[in-house]
């Protein structure tokens, strides 16, 4: 076997992980080149190629598989470079995208404007038709009027069209007809129909998914096929897959038809990595996955070895942004990181964030003009960072600048400098503790019974006290932590979901109707599999889910179907019991007396076109490494402590370090706090004992 490469192109950095024939990961990082993504990719490849003493070209030629993750779609939306898209909807409901779903941040905050809709009202067109809640045609489609509208779109040179009609999930004939008319009148213009991209109840969610998808089509088609071309031109002859928001990957041909699935694909891969690492270390199936970057802290979950999904994923802030509508791996993000600024509020309490110095000017110690004390400045003052070896020595920090800004803050607080820096870290930890608390509580996961997998360049500074506060005994911090998402891709599968909306409740359960919906879903999944190239014959798993709720509840819970079809009443009973258990886990109550309403049905197919990286045998070795240096650090209390510093490169499997200690890896630093310890596992992960 040749190389397997995964690439995660972020806003700032392009992370690359190369799996070599000996089963080892090699990480390369380069600045992202937004104008031509492949350039940044080749730069990162060059970094890795150096370690193999070969050229990027030769490496590419020897690569069997490349998995590409991109933020291109997200960036296009943020920078408003998506296609000029028309939105077609049922007459009387042109404001679906304006109204969104309500909700506002801060009951007393009137300092910000109401958000603009994803597609402006002036590009919204009403179609005379109406379908009712049970699929009945209330008003037939006025074909003449529809033609007129599409002719107008043609005259106004729209580049993409989104069609989302009320109740198209119950009866798709009107949408399908509009699709035909678009193909007839505007044959070269891409379009998206809501019942195909997101056949789910709730008109705003469906409309938003449809609008976003259509608006991305021209751009992502060009981008993905262009990337394919660039790679081929560079001598790459292997398979190309693209990572998606469900924590899986897809062939380019599939994704150009559903570009919405590339959104948030980077963060979605971190839980995939977390699941793999926990399995590798035999730590169980409940995992909290934290990815700490310079400006955000992302948290995702793995429960019972399963990724956790959400339909409540937004571009931009919840409620005021645009909902993605399609199911995505549930990853929550809080604005907290090395760049978060510390300040004192008018009541005299220390606060950290939400303002951030970002990467430019960045923390004061970057020496690039930052004048506010940040978390990174605090970590530097505390001795946790070697100013000469930050980010593998690529950036030299200025300790005196950090000292100066922290001292100024200390003066305001009437505290010592060390104590102030330490307080900044404690408060920053709180933001992350809360973020983890919310997502675990939301999904009924107990941190005390889970393991944390931590990644991102900034995780090592404070993940141990965070885990300790949460009552979580163990943290796995991979040596490749800084490229967690790219690592996740190495363990991913081709994943595809199909959905049908078929409402029924357990008082008069429509078994035939539900089974028919499940048949349709399965047919979609099989058709998808058959459309694949080389992956067609790989191992397949299929799971079914229903989004269900108690009678009259508004929000559904994802419930696994115990069996692929509901053939008998006993099967239905089993499903009801599964729902009660899910409800009890999440909300602490069950209501035996209530009928259960089933709303959307979902099938997910996972295809393993390639084997995960080999998993080394665990090692029982225990050894004590010799420190490379020592530094004076502060961990609270009254005095600084002389703290041994270890270089990760010099550590061997089984090496165990007792805190206080610092372990330095080229792209991450791990602070082992007093009374805690760290051990290097056979798989190349640091196992942090945080009890």
């Amino acid at each position, binding site marked *: 076997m040749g190389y397997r490469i995964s690439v995660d192109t972020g806003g700032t950095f392009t992370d690359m992980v190369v799996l070599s024939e000996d089963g080892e990961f090699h990480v390369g990082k380069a600045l992202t080149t937004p104008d031509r993504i492949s350039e940044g990719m080749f730069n990162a490849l060059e970094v890795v190629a150096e370690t193999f003493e070969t050229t990027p070209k030769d490496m590419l030629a020897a690569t069997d598989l490349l998995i590409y993750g991109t933020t291109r779609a997200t960036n296009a939306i943020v920078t408003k470079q998506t296609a000029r898209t028309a939105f077609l909807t049922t007459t*009387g409901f042109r404001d679906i995208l304006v109204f969104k779903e309500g909700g506002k941040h801060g009951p007393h905050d009137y300092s910000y404007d109401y958000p603009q809709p994803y597609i402006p009202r002036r590009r919204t067109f009403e179609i005379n038709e109406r379908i009712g809640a049970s699929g009945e045609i209330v008003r037939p489609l006025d074909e003449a009027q529809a033609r007129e509208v599409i002719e107008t779109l043609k005259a106004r040179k729209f580049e993409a069209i989104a069609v989302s009609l009320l109740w198209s999930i119950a009866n798709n004939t009107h949408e399908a007809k509009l699709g035909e008319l678009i193909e007839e009148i505007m044959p070269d213009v891409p379009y998206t129909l809501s019942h195909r991209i997101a056949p789910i109840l709730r008109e705003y969610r469906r409309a938003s998914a449809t609008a976003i998808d259509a608006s991305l089509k021209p751009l992502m088609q060009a981008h993905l096929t262009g990337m394919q071309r660039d790679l081929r031109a560079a001598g790459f002859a292997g398979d190309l897959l693209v990572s998606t928001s469900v924590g899986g990957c897809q062939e380019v041909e599939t994704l150009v038809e559903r570009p919405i699935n590339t959104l948030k694909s980077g963060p979605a891969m971190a839980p995939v990595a977390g699941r793999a690492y926990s399995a590798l270390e035999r730590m169980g199936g409940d995992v909290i996955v934290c990815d700490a970057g310079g400006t955000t802290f992302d948290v995702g979950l793995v429960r019972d070895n399963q990724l956790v999904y959400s339909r409540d994923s937004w571009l931009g802030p919840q409620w005021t942004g645009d909902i993605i509508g399609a199911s995505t791996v549930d990853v929550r993000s809080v604005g907290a990181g090395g760049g978060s600024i510390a300040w004192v509020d008018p009541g*005299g309490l220390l606060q950290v964030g939400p303002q951030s110095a970002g990467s430019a000017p960045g923390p004061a110690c970057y020496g690039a003009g930052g004048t506010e004390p940040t978390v990174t400045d605090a970590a530097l003052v505390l001795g946790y960072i070697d100013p000469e070896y930050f980010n593998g020595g690529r950036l030299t920090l200025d300790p005196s600048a950090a000292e100066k800004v922290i001292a100024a803050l200390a003066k305001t607080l009437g505290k010592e400098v060390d104590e102030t820096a330490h307080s900044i870290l404690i408060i920053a930890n709180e933001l992350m503790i809360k973020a983890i608390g919310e997502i675990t509580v939301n999904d009924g996961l107990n941190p005390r019974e889970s393991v944390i997998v931590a990644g991102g360049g900034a995780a090592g500074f404070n993940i141990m006290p965070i885990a300790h506060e949460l009552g979580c005994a163990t943290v796995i911090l991979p040596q490749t932590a800084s490229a967690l998402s790219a690592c996740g891709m190495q363990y991913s599968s081709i994943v595809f979901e199909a959905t049908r909306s078929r409402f029924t409740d357990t008082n008069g359960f429509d078994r035939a109707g539900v089974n028919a919906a499940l048949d349709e879903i399965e047919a979609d999944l099989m058709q998808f599999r058959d459309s694949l190239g080389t992956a067609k014959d790989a191992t397949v798993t299929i799971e079914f889910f229903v989004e269900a709720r108690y009678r009259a509840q508004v929000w559904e819970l994802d419930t696994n179907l115990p069996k692929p079809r509901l053939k008998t009443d006993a099967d239905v009973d089993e499903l009801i019991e599964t729902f009660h258990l899910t409800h009890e886990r999440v909300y602490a109550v069950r209501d035996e007396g209530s009928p259960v309403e089933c709303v959307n049905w979902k099938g997910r197919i996972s295809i393993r076109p390639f084997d995960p990286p080999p998993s080394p045998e665990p090692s029982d070795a225990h050894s004590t490494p010799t420190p490379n240096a020592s530094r004076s650090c502060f961990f609270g209390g009254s005095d600084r402590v002389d703290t041994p510093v270890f270089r990760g490169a010099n550590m061997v499997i089984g090496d165990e370090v007792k805190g206080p200690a610092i372990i330095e890896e080229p792209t991450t630093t791990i602070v082992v706090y007093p009374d805690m310890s760290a051990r290097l596992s056979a798989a190349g992960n640091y196992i942090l004992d945080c009890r």
Partner: protein
Amino acid sequence: MAEPETTLDPVLISVMANRLDGIVREMTNTLLRSARSAVISSARDFSCCLVTGNDELLAPAEGLPVHIFGCHIQTANMREYHKGDIQRGDAYLDNDPYGGNTHPADHTFMVPVFFEGEHMFTAVSKCHMADIGNSIPSSYFVRARDVYEEGALVFPGVRIQRDFKNNEDIMRMCRARIRVPDQWYGDYLAGLGSARIAERRLEAFCEKYGKDTVKAFMREWFDYSERRMIDNIRRLPKASLVNTGRSDPLEGILPDGLELTVKIDIDPDEGNIHVDLRDNPPCVDAGLNTSLGSATSAVVGAIFNALDKDLPRNEGAFRRLHFQYAEDSVVAAPTFPHSCSVSTTNVSERLVNITQSAFAQLGDGMGLSEGGAGLGAGMAVISGQDLRREPEPYVNRLMLSTNGGPASAVADGWVNYAIPVIAGLMYRDSVEVDELKHPIRVESLTLVTDSAGAGRRRGAPAQQIEYGPTHAPMMAVISCDGQHSQPRGVLGGLPGTSGETWLIEDETQPVRLPNVAQVTINMGQRVRGRDSAGGGYGDPLDRETERVIVDVLEGWETLEKAKDIYGVIFTGEIDDESLEVDEAATEARRKELREARAA
């Protein structure tokens, strides 16, 4: 025993405050997601908070501003009524508007939390129930002459659980009187479940930090909050503000509505705000009387609208707010047996508007305009028989269309505002979800062009909805207080348009309904409701042309209104997006309008 005096590390105070905030957020999330009726799960008409064992409001969630004040009175009553007989495993239900609660529709669940045998906290969830056994199928009864005609079951601090088990007598009483009792019971489980979750978390919290530290924390957190409040008030000018407003008429009872007055004295030297609510009409024989809890919350919430956004809202901050109430008044001083059925809305909505716009008297940059008010047809309580399967009764409040929000000095009005006491926090119902749940069809739901109150910052436009039944007649109870007195602008801002309701059978002859209406919509008929729009802030002629062009392109305002009110002239077309501001013509037009105004 004297309290041990400890001084806590300020970092620990932050950490502990953060943990409590996490607990209240968990309560909120649990209740929101597991509740049954749309009034809770969509309209978010509920709130969760933690009160100390000594009945001081400690930590509220980001809940409805109209619930912020009063829970501490309810917990105090609970302790008084059950003196010496409160223990772990108890839970209490209170909805008495004469005992600190907002109005009878708000069922308040209180769980006393014990640690080492001491009552440390009370966890409180307050939920607006879809039905409470009133004599009409609505938990809002504007025309209720007194509490007897209103008909609500009232629970003054009643114990509903002992040893974590329901008092089944009370469950049966509720099931015997409340419409769609399973829905009520589902919301009961959600409300109580949320308070029980808080109990578990608070016990762990006390375990972790120890009793003395927790007590010291509470003390210091209140002191900190008070310091924040003092600091904020010191930055306000010294002023006495008086503002009045008028509620809508009530056919046959209050032909002119009610004139309402709020007086506010800001004393930056002492760091206090004094509110005088005494100059208001006596109680009325209708459900419009406001409880102490509602009226105070409405005013407190509106004052917070004028202060820093991140102020803690708790007993410590409230120490700096001082209220004077009348003996017998429609505002905050109900006398028995007057009804407070719509205490949280109608008059309270006006109190929010009067208070927040009073602050604009302090000058540009301060206060807000008035927000759109009134629970119109899109927020009606609908009820009837659902014949789509086995016949089944239904009752629920809609949250399909909402009023437009007020403008501030810096931002335009919020579209999804609902009413001033909800302040944009609610979720909208999905049309599809409502059509699935109830035998209703929505014909249309849109923004109303040219309805917004113009200003340098504009109010949010109104919305209009049309709906009717699909299988059998439906009753809609509409308790709207927003169809006569328009939401006013401030500092030169113009008012938003008022709401209107029609019953339509023949499209050519819509029948206008009064603002408060209880209407049966028969098959073939529809109700059409228009909500009101927010008032503007500042002079519309000062509105940046780049904002006006977006309004016009988006169809929120017309070219005519742009010309007549904003003084902005365009070239090009809207349709092909070639519209551009004609700078010279605009300047001339604005000059002309200013001169006409001066003359």
